[in-house]
C-alpha cells in the first residue's frame, strides 16, 4: 500500500510538471494570433487613447506670436475641461442620457423578456414559430432597425396615424427618447427572453409538482421557484445587455441623428468630437466611458452576482445532462 501510493505520488508529481512545460509553450504558440489581434486593436488603442487624452491638438499663435501646431501636453486639462468647462453641460447631458437609456431599456427588457420566456416555456405547439419570430429582431442590424423605426415614428407615419396623435417622435425631447427606448427594447427583449428560457428549461418539473401539492398557485411558483432558479442566467443576460446599452451608438445615431441633445449618448459625443478632429477631448470622453462601464460592471458583479463566470459554468453542466 505504502509503496504504491508513494509511486503514484511520485508519478503524479512528476507528470504534470513535464506536461506543463510542453503545454505552456504550445499554449503560448496557439494563443499568440488571438493575443496579437487583441493587442493591436484593443490594448494598443486603449493605451494610445489614454495618452491622447492628455494632449490637445492646437494650431494658433502662442504668447510670442509664433504659429504653434501639433499636440500640446495638457495633463488632465481635457478632463478638467470636460467636467467644468464651457461644454460641461453637454457632457453631463450625454452621461445622463447614457445612464437613463441603460436603466430604462434594460429594466423593460427584463420584464418583457421574462414574460416571453414564461409563455414560451409553456408553449408546445407554436414553439418553432416563436423561436423564428423571436430571432428576427435580434438578427436585424441595429442600423436597419434605426431606419425602420424612424419610418414608423415618422411625423405622418404609422404610429401617429394609428394612435391618432400628432407627435414629432424623431425630432427632439422626450418623444425622441421614447422612440429610442421602444426601438431598443423591441430589438433586445426577445434576446433576454431566449436566455431566460434556456435557464427555465433546466428547472426539473418535480419541483413544480411538489409546490403544486403544497398548494402554491402559479404566481407563488413563479416567485418562489422560477425566479430564484433562473437568476444566474438572467444576471448574465442583464450584465451583457447593460454593457451593451452603455455604449449605445447606432440606434440613436440612425433613428434621431447626431448632435441631438435629448438622445446624445457618450459614444455619440465622443464620435462627434473625433469627427471634428478634437482627438484629445474625444479620447478623454472614451476613457471616461470606459471607466464608467468598468465601474458599473464591477458594481453589478459585486452587488448582484458574486460569480457570473461560475454561474455560466454551472449553467453549462446541467444543460448537458438535460440533453442526454
Amino acid at each position, binding site marked *: 500500500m505504502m509503496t504504491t501510493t508513494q509511486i503514484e505520488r511520485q508519478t503524479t508529481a512528476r507528470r*504534470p510538471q513535464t506536461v506543463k512545460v510542453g503545454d505552456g509553450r504550445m499554449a503560448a504558440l496557439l494563443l499568440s494570433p488571438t493575443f496579437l489581434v487583441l493587442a493591436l486593436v*484593443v490594448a494598443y488603442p486603449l493605451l494610445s487613447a489614454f495618452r491622447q487624452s492628455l494632449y490637445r491638438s492646437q494650431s494658433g499663435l502662442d504668447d510670442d506670436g509664433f504659429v504653434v501646431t501639433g499636440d500640446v501636453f495638457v495633463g488632465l486639462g481635457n478632463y478638467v475641461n470636460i467636467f467644468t468647462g464651457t461644454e460641461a453641460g453637454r457632457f453631463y447631458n450625454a452621461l445622463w442620457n447614457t445612464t437613463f437609456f441603460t436603466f430604462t431599456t434594460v429594466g423593460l427588457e427584463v420584464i418583457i423578456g421574462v414574460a416571453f420566456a414564461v409563455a414560451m416555456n409553456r408553449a408546445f405547439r407554436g414553439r418553432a414559430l416563436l423561436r423564428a419570430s423571436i430571432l*428576427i429582431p435580434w438578427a436585424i442590424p441595429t442600423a436597419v432597425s434605426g431606419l425602420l423605426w424612424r419610418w414608423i415614428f415618422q411625423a405622418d407615419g404609422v404610429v401617429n396615424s394609428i394612435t391618432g396623435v400628432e407627435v414629432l417622435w424623431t425630432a427632439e425631447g422626450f418623444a425622441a427618447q421614447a422612440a429610442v427606448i421602444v426601438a431598443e427594447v423591441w430589438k433586445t427583449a426577445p434576446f433576454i427572453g431566449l436566455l431566460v428560457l434556456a435557464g427555465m428549461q433546466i428547472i426539473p418539473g418535480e419541483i413544480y409538482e411538489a409546490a403544486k401539492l403544497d398548494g402554491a398557485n402559479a404566481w407563488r411558483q413563479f416567485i418562489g421557484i422560477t425566479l430564484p432558479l433562473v437568476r444566474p442566467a438572467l444576471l448574465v443576460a442583464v450584465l451583457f445587455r447593460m454593457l451593451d446599452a452603455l455604449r449605445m451608438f447606432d440606434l440613436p445615431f440612425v433613428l434621431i441623428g447626431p448632435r441631438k441633445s435629448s438622445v446624445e449618448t457618450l*459614444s455619440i459625443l465622443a464620435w462627434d468630437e473625433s469627427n471634428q478632429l478634437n482627438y484629445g477631448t*474625444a479620447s478623454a470622453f472614451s476613457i471616461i466611458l470606459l471607466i464608467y462601464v468598468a465601474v458599473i460592471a464591477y458594481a453589478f458583479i459585486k452587488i448582484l452576482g458574486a460569480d457570473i463566470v461560475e454561474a455560466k459554468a454551472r449553467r453549462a453542466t446541467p444543460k448537458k445532462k438535460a440533453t442526454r
Partner: protein
Amino acid sequence: MTDTLQRPRFSERMLPPDPVRKPRKRGWGAASLVLAITAISVYCLAPFFWMLVSSFRRTSDIFETTILPTTWSIESYRQALDGSSMFGRAMLNSLLVAGTTTVLALVFAIFASYTLARLNFRFKSAVLAIIIATSMFPGISVVVPLLQFFSDIGWINTYQSMIVPNLSFALPLAIWILTTFMRQIPVDLEQAAMIDGCTKWQAFRLVLLPLAAPGVFTTAILTFIQSWNEFIIALSMVNDPAVQTATVAVSKFTGATDFQSPYGVQMAAGVLVTIPLIIVVLLFQRRIVEGLTAGGTK
C-alpha cells in the same frame, strides 16, 4: 438510458385522463397561451413586416397605412439597386468583410479554444478572463486611436481597416462558445487515438475537429451575423462609397433624387440588408439558439 427515459412517458400515456378538472383548465390555459404566442409573434414581426410592406409600395403611395400595398411595385428595389447609389457594391463589401472576419476569427478561435479546453498551463483562467473582458470595451474607445493609427499606415478606406477591428469584437465571442463546445467533448476519444499512435496534431485534426464541427458551424453563423451588423467601425474608417459596408450605406441612403422622400428606397435597402440574415436565421434557428445560450454573450 433511453429506456428509462421513455418508460415514464409511456406509462403516463397509459393513465386514464384526469376526469373533471383538467379539460376545463386546459381549455382556458390553451386560449391564453395562444393569445400570448400571437402577441409575442406580432410584437416581434410587426415592425419588420411594416418595413417589408412599405418597400413594396409605389413611391407615390408610400404614406398609405393599409395592411398590404394597394398596388404592388418593385420600384423601390430598382432604385435601391440602381448603379448610382452603389448599394449593390456595399452589399458585396459587407459580404467580403463579414466573410473574411468569420474565416479568420474561426481559425484563430479554434486554436485558442483548443488551448483553453485541452492544454494545462499557468494563468489559464486569467487568459480566458482577459479574452472575455475585451468584449466589454466600448467600441468608441478604440475608434479614435485606431482612426489615427490607420491614417498613419494608410489603411483608411481599406477592407482590412474594418476586418481587423471586427476580429477583435468577434474573437471573444467565438472563443467563449467554442471553448464551451470543446469542453463538452470527452477527452478520452483523443487519448484513445493517441494510444493508437496518433500525434497530438492528428488527434486534434482527425478526432476533435470533426466532433467540434457543429460548434464551429454555430460560431461561424453568430460571428457572421455580428460582423455583418457592425456599424461604428465601418462608419469611422471608411468614407469612400466604393468600400463602405451595407449597414453604413443604408444609414446614408438619400435616394436617387433629392426632392422626393426616400423612405421607400430606404425600406427596400433595409430589407435587402436583412434578408440574408433572415434566411440564415430561419435555416439554422436551432443552432443559433444553442450557440447564444451556450455563449451567454451578445
